[in-house]
């Protein structure tokens, strides 16, 4: 079962539509049981890092998420803010995040570019993951970007006034700064790659 975590400020329905389009049934998950029983967990993200962490806390599912992803090694995909909160800390709201990956999340330099970055940008991938992703254009909406401590965690990069991390992967944990559910066929292909993984 593929569980999409459904919190108020997230866009879980959009991710569900996208998964349905490529032939995967999903459930919108709001409680610990659904997370514990999932083969794949997707954490969609819109809004801020602090608000997202607060939502997960209020839902009471942080412990279940950690258990599933860190101990049971359930496949996990964080999208946009869902990827940013994988790191230890975000400059946005000065939020303490999950800390599953070492590093932090910084704000784009507004003197170099308009912030937020909003639109389609090209991503190049390292060919070292079970998901085969080709260099293509993906849709981004972000004012902040991840700075992983361990370069081996970087799966994809893009450029917005400088190279930034567009996708990460460590073991069963995947994250995309871009919106796979809104990146037309390129995004659907990455989402299909994730949903098709087996543990």
């Amino acid at each position, binding site marked *: 079962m593929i569980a999409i975590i459904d919190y108020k400020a997230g866009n879980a329905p*959009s991710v569900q539509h996208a998964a349905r389009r490529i032939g995967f049934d999903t459930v919108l998950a709001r409680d610990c049981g659904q997370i514990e029983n999932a083969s794949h967990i997707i954490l969609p993200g819109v809004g801020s890092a602090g608000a997202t962490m607060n939502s997960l806390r209020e839902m009471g599912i942080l412990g279940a998420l950690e258990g599933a992803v860190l101990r049971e090694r359930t496949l996990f995909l964080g999208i946009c803010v869902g990827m940013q909160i994988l790191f230890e800390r975000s400059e946005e709201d000065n939020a303490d995040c999950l800390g599953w990956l070492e590093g932090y999340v910084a704000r784009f330099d507004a003197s170099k570019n308009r912030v937020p*970055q*909003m639109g389609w940008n090209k991503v190049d991938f390292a060919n070292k993951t079970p998901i085969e992703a080709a260099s293509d254009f993906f849709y981004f909406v972000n004012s902040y970007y991840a700075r992983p401590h361990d370069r081996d965690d970087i799966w994809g990069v893009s450029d917005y006034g400088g190279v930034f991390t567009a996708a990460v992967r460590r073991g069963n944990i995947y994250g995309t700064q871009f919106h796979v559910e809104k990146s037309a066929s390129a995004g659907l292909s990455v989402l299909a790659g994730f949903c098709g993984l087996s543990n």
Partner: protein
Amino acid sequence: MLTKRLIACFDVINGRVTKAVQFQDNIDVAEASEMARKMYEEQIDEIIFFDIMASAEKRMIDIETVKKVAACVFVPFTVGGGIRDVSDMYETLKAGAEKISIDSMAVRNPSIISEGAKEFGSQCIVLSTQVLKTPSMPSGYEVYIDGARTATGLDAIEWIKRGEQLGAGEICVNSIDCDGTLGGYDLNLMRLAEKSVSVPLIASGGAGVPEHLKDVFTQTQTQAAIISSMLYSPRLEKNYSVRELKNYLLENGVNVRPATEI
């Protein structure tokens, strides 16, 4: 490098796309979800849908049509028209929209911008504004509301600055003078706007031929442009496909997401 965006805009009445000239004389074009699917397959970068009668009829936006469009479109999708409060925004986002466009309601009640941004994030809130050349205004442009029928006395540039401060994540500037004329975007207006705010800007009103897109993307910093008539207006002898437009822009040095074969 971030590419420039082409946004297809639909004025929707009863679930169908219509086409007006300078906000009047709407004629029927096609069913909204069919048109959205066609544009998606042609690789449009984004879609905006306005429920243009919701505000006048004092009703909630047409959620069933939002759902139908969202189910077949996997690019960003913005919805506007008749959004009254945060609860309407939530229903619209839940139906599958990514962003909410607010226009007349933001002028009547500016705090709707900050409330929406606080609840869903600035990236969800697009401030759309209709502006008319008005020499007596400091910037030379005045904000109009209610389908461009009512003057507000607000200076257009002051208004978009305020919108940014209140938390709008993107600003769509529609020139009433240029709308539907097919004579090109108001480049002077976009240059004034880009100097005044730092969030991404969308130019709207006036596109008739591919050169108009080239002009707005090369002569101003505008990141996105709304196109409608040139894509599907039955009044025009020639409609352009998204692919034709993107190929033209790439040949002319404008960085857009290429329309690859699917």
